[in-house]
């Protein structure tokens, strides 16, 4: 009897943990579903890369951190950034047309899946710790978290060229 109760308890615990994890994941996806983030240049990176600080918004600071990389890759593809300090010049997004995202929706949905291909093109530029000035509480229930990442923009561009989403410099020649 005792064994039966313990087994039931373990099963319930497992189900609970899984459901909680799934809920958290969904919550994080919900927060970033509308691609609400800000992108700024953080300096001149090595050739073929962009060093950017991405500010993500979320009710939970952990979600904002976990979504930062996804937002950064999305930003390089669709938003670009204005210039700024540290010798930064403006960067136009790789995809110019607003319709392209809708046209290649299937590709981008798959590309930006959790653990998806976008991870190949981004890496953390710091040791993971977030400076106090980069963790802002913007309202009673919302945080704005800034993380610095390195996006391999040249590789990303080549990938999109290969997919026919954007034209390369040599297209047509």
């Amino acid at each position, binding site marked *: 009897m005792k064994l039966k109760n313990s087994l039931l308890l373990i099963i319930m615990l497992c189900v609970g943990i899984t459901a909680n994890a799934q809920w958290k994941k969904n919550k994080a996806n919900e927060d970033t579903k509308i691609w609400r983030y800000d992108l700024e240049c953080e300096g*001149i990176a090595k050739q*073929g890369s962009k060093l950017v600080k991405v500010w993500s918004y979320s009710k939970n600071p952990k979600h904002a951190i976990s979504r930062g990389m996804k937002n950064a890759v999305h930003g390089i593809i669709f938003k670009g950034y204005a210039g700024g300090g540290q010798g930064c*010049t*403006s*960067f136009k997004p790789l995809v110019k047309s607003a319709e392209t995202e809708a046209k290649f929706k299937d590709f981008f949905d798959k590309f930006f899946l959790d653990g998806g291909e976008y991870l190949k093109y981004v890496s953390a530029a710091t040791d993971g710790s977030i400076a106090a000035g980069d963790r802002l509480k913007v309202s009673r229930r919302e945080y704005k978290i800034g993380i610095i990442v390195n996006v391999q923009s040249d590789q990303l561009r080549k990938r999109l060229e290969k997919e026919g989403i954007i034209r390369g*410099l*040599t297209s047509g*020649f």
Partner: protein
Amino acid sequence: MKKHYQLVITLCFMLLSSVVFSQAKKPTLMVVPSDVWCNQNGYMLSFNDQGTLVKIPDYKKAFQENPEVIQVISHINGMMADRGFPLKNMESAIKTLNSNSAEDNMRTSKASGSAVSESPIDALKKVAKADIIIQLTWTVNKTGPKKSITFNLQGLDAYTDKQVATAVGTGAPSFSAEIPVLLEEAVLAHMDNFSESLQTHFDDMFENGREIIVRIQKWDDWDGNLETEFDGEELGIIIEDWLADNTVKGRFSTTDMTEDMALFEQVRIPLYNNKGRAIDARRYVRDLSKFLKSPPYNIQNKLVMKGLGRATIILGSK
């Protein structure tokens, strides 16, 4: 069965040839230090032209004495090659021209001892050239101990003289960084924007055609001119009509038209002819040349070309 095989093979060849010919003519690009940079850094040749002091850039000296210019050009070449667009290297082009010239001077025919033929025009044309010149300028700004670099890249179409791409800006000032490091940062910071504007130019070219310049001139001994009438229409107007019919969306501008010459700019020519083959200014203007040679005009003419984008027809004879 054999017939089927032959049909399939023929279709494959047709497909292959259409793929081969569907590539537009690729322009060549070359980075050239600007006159301003050469002047500021003392790489100029001066000579007296009938009382006027004329200065021209001494590129050879710049490449031999300034390691920074080699570094910047090498960096730009590398980044463009990475995008599938390797550039012509000016230093090598100058060396090749010199060695070719030396070889041509020494070469004689085994049979007759004759030298290689070269007209004065050919001699004039022997310069390092490209379809798009990337003009490079940088200046080092100093404010106390702080240094920064103002960097300017201009992509200039060698035929239309238009600026087709650009990237310009001043980098962040630094107390400690050395000039080569600041230059490297400047190239990294600006090349994306430069490629971007070049891409916009190519996109426009694919949509609206290649922009060329067409000049019409006449030999002095020809008894006709551009005001000569054929069926009540002046020759100049007939040429304009031909251009209107054969340019993309009828786009061209008549910049100058006198009885002896005409200059047409912003002439948008299609990238391919009706056989699907890539064409340049020469191929395009050759059709105009044939048109003028045919009845009722019967005007003999000479076609002279300059790269992908400039062609001249001289009316009267070959």
